[in-house]
């Protein structure tokens, strides 16, 4: 799938939606992508600030001030430097981050022991500590949901897709994918080790977001504390800057440019992209201060990203492999796929009650995993129905893109 898309010589996946379907599908896809992207970015700032506050033992009353300083720093260097500053700082930050992640993991293993950690986790959570199938919150439905979700992310999520689409050739693209999949395995597992370590150290009831930085700040000696703080600060900054740049580019490229008759000059594009970096940065701050996470950040991110992924995967797969896929089907796929996660996100934000007390209609209707699986299924159902039923305008249909 990735190789086929790379052969089309496009820079954003939403360009493919116009190439294969229509300008309207591109705009709808880009709108859902921006909604999912900005909503996910909204909690990143808070997570970064909670980490800084817990790790450095700053009083929690300074949380909002920390968030404000973080967003100002990242917006200023993204606006002033643009893509080159993001690439160069990302590289320096990567070195710092990789080093501090490995050292942190070593300290966690020293604290609990490599094999001892698994035994202690089992005594804390029982069989469900290591077996996802027997865990009440996970099980097969989660494994199916997460597998489809992760595949979608490789090609539909603009910050990841831009690396894929910018590769020199499809062969290099494949090599990047093989290498990064192993890298992602390590990158995902190291923080999991810290989380297990924190749960053992502080107890299972301790707050999931605040526990890990608190635990690490207590086991690290002076020096390593500073290195790790710099590494995590780097991770937070580089993620925020990449995302700010990705979403502002999507807004200019896919939502504004298609409606300008004479296009936008290069200077105009840069100006608009910078303007949207500032606007999204301000939104991040307002959202981060106002919104209270009710479940884990992981669950929240799964839900908001599914708004775009569920329809996007059907539109992309059908466009690449199914000749009868048409514009009407693509519209239905996006709409059907977004219904459940969007309804949940609106309901979740409307009910700003303390954690554990949210019992909205969508939450009662379906478990989070079933909601996710069903959203992807609805995306494909929309594509199938729209393309097979005789409601679409025949003039709207384009032949499959020749690759």
């Amino acid at each position, binding site marked *: 799938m990735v190789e086929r898309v790379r052969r089309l010589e496009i820079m954003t996946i939403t360009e493919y939606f116009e190439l294969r379907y229509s300008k309207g599908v591109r705009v709808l896809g880009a709108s859902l992508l921006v909604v999912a992207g900005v909503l996910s970015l909204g909690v990143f700032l808070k997570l970064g600030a909670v980490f800084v506050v817990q790790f450095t033992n700053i009083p929690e009353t300074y949380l909002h001030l920390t968030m404000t300083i973080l967003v100002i720093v990242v917006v200023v260097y993204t606006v002033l430097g643009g893509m080159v500053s993001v690439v160069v700082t990302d590289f320096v930050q*990567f070195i710092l981050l990789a080093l501090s992640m*490995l050292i942190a993991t070593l300290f966690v293993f020293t604290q609990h022991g490599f094999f001892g950690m698994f035994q202690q986790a089992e005594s804390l959570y029982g069989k469900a500590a290591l077996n996802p199938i027997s865990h009440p919150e996970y099980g097969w439905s989660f494994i199916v949901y997460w597998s489809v979700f992760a595949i979608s992310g490789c090609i539909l999520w603009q910050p990841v897709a831009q690396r894929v689409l910018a590769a020199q050739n499809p062969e290099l693209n494949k090599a990047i994918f093989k290498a990064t999949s*192993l*890298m992602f395995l*390590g990158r995902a597992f190291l923080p999991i080790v810290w989380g297990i370590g924190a749960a053992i150290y502080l107890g299972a009831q301790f707050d999931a977001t605040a526990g890990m930085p608190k635990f690490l700040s207590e086991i690290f000696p002076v020096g390593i504390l500073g290195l790790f703080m710099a590494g995590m600060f780097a991770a937070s900054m580089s993620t925020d800057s990449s995302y700010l740049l990705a979403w502002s580019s999507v807004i200019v490229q896919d939502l504004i440019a298609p409606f300008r008759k004479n296009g936008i000059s290069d200077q105009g594009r840069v100006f608009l992209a910078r303007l949207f970096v500032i606007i999204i940065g301000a939104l991040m701050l307002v959202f981060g201060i106002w919104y209270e996470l009710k479940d884990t950040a992981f669950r929240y991110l799964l839900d908001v990203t599914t708004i775009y992924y569920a329809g996007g995967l059907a539109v992309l797969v059908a466009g690449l492999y199914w000749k009868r896929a048409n514009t009407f089907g693509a519209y239905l796929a996006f709409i059907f796929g977004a219904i459940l996660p969007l309804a949940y996100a609106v309901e979740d934000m409307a009910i700003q009650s303390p954690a554990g007390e949210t019992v909205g209609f969508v939450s009662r209707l379906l478990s989070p995993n079933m909601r996710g699986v069903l959203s992807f299924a609805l995306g494909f159902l929309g594509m199938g129905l729209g393309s097979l039923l005789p409601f679409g305008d025949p003039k709207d249909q384009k032949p499959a893109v020749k690759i």
Partner: protein
Amino acid sequence: MDVWKLIWIVVLIVGIASFIYISLKVTIRGFSEVRSLLKEMTEV
């Protein structure tokens, strides 16, 4: 040994080893890439 425990241990070892290997590779290659990028920019 429990199958799930074995899976966790194997995946953890493979994950950490891959992370170290690719981090080293990216760091070494990245230095020359960033240097040429900055050189290009200064020339422009």
